[in-house]
């Protein structure tokens, strides 16, 4: 039995629709608010109820670390960016290799304000009986999806977003958050910018206080930059195991000085992951990190669950519990 704790965690988002009128109520509420058929207060009531439902679904699946499902998010870029001062939201751009699109922010003057995630967190906090993780898109990924004017560059824009993230972390601290996941999938697309990302995070995390910060990379293979991830100023390293066949062995060889969150479940395909095969991979990492005295390994989906139909997302979370049980059993 490993000494380290195996934590079942959600990654970030959760499907916002499902089959049947009840599971479609949030979608209808968004549409009805847009056309003025319901008030903001009506919408808020439905959205809060939906947040409670997705948190309960995660808790029923046995998760230790849940999220609010990012129910309020229009998308992973424009939701946080639209709440900042001096940022306007423009046209659509495809989000990585997914068949989803995000709206691009454009910076019109010095960025002010926060991403508003602390407000989302506060609404969800009372609904969770398990630890609630806040999720925020990282400064570098925001910069990479923003419209950059001719006199701008991703680096300086990322630094501006980092200052906003710093203010957000202060607000999250004040709201009672304990764990915050910062999503930086763009780092895998531009691995040469690892130093820039490190500096950006250093600036943002100066105000992190007691928060536990998880740095999440996904939609790509982190094998070649795993060493760089170990140098990032974060408390948990989250990786996507669905891309690189060599990533598990890389983690085993390099080890880690802090908890690692393994994106062990494929959140991009409906096919149920093979319990024994995934448990074997997770077990390899658990054994290696347990020997190094690492306190926790998280088992989580590879990325947000919004890329799956709701029934499959729920089933995948249940499969995570089966995998954890298989890992624990193998370790006894």
């Amino acid at each position, binding site marked *: 039995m490993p000494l380290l704790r195996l934590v079942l965690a959600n990654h970030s988002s959760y*499907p*916002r*629709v*499902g*089959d049947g009128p009840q599971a479609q109520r949030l*979608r209808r509420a*968004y*549409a009805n608010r*847009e056309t003025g058929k319901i008030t903001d207060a009506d919408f808020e009531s439905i959205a809060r109820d939906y947040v409670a439902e997705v948190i309960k679904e995660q808790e029923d699946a046995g998760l230790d670390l849940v999220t609010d499902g990012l129910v309020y998010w*229009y*998308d992973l870029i424009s939701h946080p960016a639209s709440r900042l001062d001096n940022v306007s939201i423009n*046209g*659509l*751009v*495809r989000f*990585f*290799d*997914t*068949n*989803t*699109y*995000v*709206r691009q922010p454009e910076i019109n003057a010095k960025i002010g304000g926060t991403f508003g995630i602390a407000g989302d967190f506060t609404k969800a906090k009372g609904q969770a009986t398990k630890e609630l993780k806040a999720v925020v898109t990282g400064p570098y990924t925001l910069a990479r999806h923003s419209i950059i004017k001719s006199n701008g560059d991703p680096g300086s824009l990322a630094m501006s977003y980092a200052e906003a993230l710093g203010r957000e972390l202060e607000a999250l601290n004040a709201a009672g958050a304990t764990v915050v996941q910062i999503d930086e999938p763009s780092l895998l697309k531009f691995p040469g910018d690892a130093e820039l990302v490190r500096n950006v995070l250093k600036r943002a995390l100066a105000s992190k206080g007691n928060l536990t910060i998880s740095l999440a990379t996904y939609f790509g293979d982190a094998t070649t930059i795993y060493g760089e991830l170990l140098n990032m100023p974060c408390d948990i390293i989250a990786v996507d195991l669905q891309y690189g066949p060599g990533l598990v062995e890389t983690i085993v060889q390099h080890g880690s000085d802090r908890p690692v969150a393994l994106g062990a479940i494929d959140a991009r*395909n*409906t*096919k149920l992951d093979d319990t024994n095969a995934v448990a074997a991979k997770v077990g390899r990492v658990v054994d290696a990190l347990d020997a190094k005295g690492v306190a926790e390994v998280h088992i989580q989906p590879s990325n947000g669950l*919004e*890329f*799956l*139909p*709701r*029934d*499959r997302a729920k089933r995948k979370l249940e499969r995570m519990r089966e995998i954890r049980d298989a890992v624990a059993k193998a370790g006894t």
Partner: protein
Amino acid sequence: MSGREKLKSLGIELPILPITAVGSYAKPEGLTKARAKFVRGDISSDELRKHQEEATAMWMGFQNEIGVDVPVDGEMYRTDMVEYFAEEMGGFEKGGWVRSYGNRYYRKPIITGETTWRGPITVDWWKFAQSLTDKPVKGMFTGGYTTMDWSFNEFYPDRKATALALAREFRKEVEALVEAGCKIIQVDEPAVSVRADEIDIAIEAMQITCEGIDAYFITHALEYGYPETVFPDVLNLAVDNFDMEFANSEFTFLEGLRDFGFDKDLSLGVVDVHTHVIDDTDEVEQRIRKAIDILPAETIWPDPDCGLKTRTVEESMGKMRAIAEATKRVRADISSRV
């Protein structure tokens, strides 16, 4: 052979700056209600078909009225661009809802067996639309690479095997369209620009589907992404015309297209389909003029950025009217200079 020469060899003469549409138009309220009734089992498939034909006829009449040169049937019969084909083919199961963007969702199909073409999918609708106009109606379907990318796969060993298997089946649809008399065929492949590392798969899939068949091929392949990441390799897709979004991205890639030695025809997206605002005709005119400053006018086909199904009927019409009016102004200017 240039695009125009190929079209001529097929017996098609088009004016300068031929106006077209990408594929879909907004479904009228009557059809939307009929679809809901059909899903509930309140009306028969024959009754639904009647509504679909009425809506198709309405859009064909509208396109004739405003002077669309290569009209489309408007896809009144489709759910979405992958789900519809998955429902008509073997090897797919109906999937659940997943998000496209914002509050837009679609049912993403699941491949659970060998994918098979069970018979013509779009041909009847193409024939129906063609019977309502003397203009050449575009045949349209979603290609193998995008159908693979926008489906869950629980059967094939990898993405390449999935895409090529689908491409082989879709060739049968192309052959059926050509046999019916269709000469301009659009293979929708919007997923192509997403993964540069898989461009060879997309090229091979398109070859399997189209190569050696006597028709003028368009691909709607480059939208809302980073087209520069797949250039110049993407030019090896076996088509005559690339349909690209430009209005949404403010024409940022147009000069890049020239710099990459683009030598195909270009269906030029000149109205943004993701806003309720009707594009200003003067602005649309400027967009067309900008394009013909960079690429030969005889290669440009003005159209919307993408399908108009997410807009209302009025918005769809307004945007198409803006294209038609702006194109006519530019055409008049070109002919006065000749």
